[in-house]
């Protein structure tokens, strides 16, 4: 039995758990955007919502993207004035770079003008994530 080996395995376990939990905690967090960024319907290839829009950036090999879409799309369909748009990141690289989208899924919330009011990456896999988005969208719908 190797002493340094035991120590390394123990450290690896701790590091993996810490990193994994940290990733889980920061996923889905909605951050308010300071600088003003406006997205147009042309940018995303679809009509923006009358009152608000939820834009999701996805990539091809991404199961969290699909899970997020499965939660956001039906919810948005039932909200009047709210549109949901799923954007393929790899075919919209200019937009991705302009908005600094680092990973997928990334969800952006736009107001009626297309101004980005908040955004978060990591997606919506749990109810609390969805509620956070709903809370952020609610004031825009009034």
């Amino acid at each position, binding site marked *: 039995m190797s002493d340094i080996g035991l120590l390394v395995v123990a450290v690896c376990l701790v590091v993996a758990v810490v990193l994994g939990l940290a990733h889980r905690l920061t996923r889905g967090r909605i951050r308010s955007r300071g600088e003003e960024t406006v997205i147009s319907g042309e940018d995303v290839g679809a009509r923006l919502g009358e009152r608000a829009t939820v834009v999701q950036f996805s990539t*091809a090999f991404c199961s969290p993207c699909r899970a997020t879409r499965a939660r956001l799309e039906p919810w948005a369909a039932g909200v009047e004035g709210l549109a949901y748009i799923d954007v393929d990141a790899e075919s919209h690289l200019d937009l991705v770079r302009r908005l600094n989208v680092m990973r997928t899924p990334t969800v952006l919330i736009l107001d009626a003008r297309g101004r980005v009011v908040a955004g978060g990456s990591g997606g919506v896999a749990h109810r609390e994530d969805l509620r956070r988005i709903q809370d952020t969208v609610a004031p825009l719908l009034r």
Partner: protein
Amino acid sequence: MSAPAALVDPRGLRFSAALTSIVLAVAIIAPSPQREILLALQAVIFAQAAFASPQNGPYARLFIHVVSPRLGPPRELEDARPPRFAQQVGLSFVLVSLALLLTGFATAGVIVAGFALVAALLNALFGLCLGCEAYLLGRRVTSKGPIQRTHRPASPIHESL
């Protein structure tokens, strides 16, 4: 980019990551030469999954024949390319670790193997694939044009996978 990519059951990848974690952890704790032998074995498995046919590897076979029948069909399938890249990364770490161990740098060798273990654990415990993320970032940087979506929901054709 016109040919559809191979699709795999993501649960199988996670299962393989769990077995990889166990093998790497045991290897790191074991004394020499069992340690080097186990690492070499894991290197071969990585290489097979990365460059040859992943579904013939021991972990994949175990999943397909023993675990998968008990789980039912997969809800979705995942493109095989990012995980294959991740296996290449794993292989690199294990080879470097072996090189260090065989040239007398035991501590460094064990630590490098530890990095591979962390990646395998993240995958097994949380479903996080660091290699896949790296692959996507690399594609984002080098991509020259639109890339076809290859992801699609599982269909009956793929149940034999």
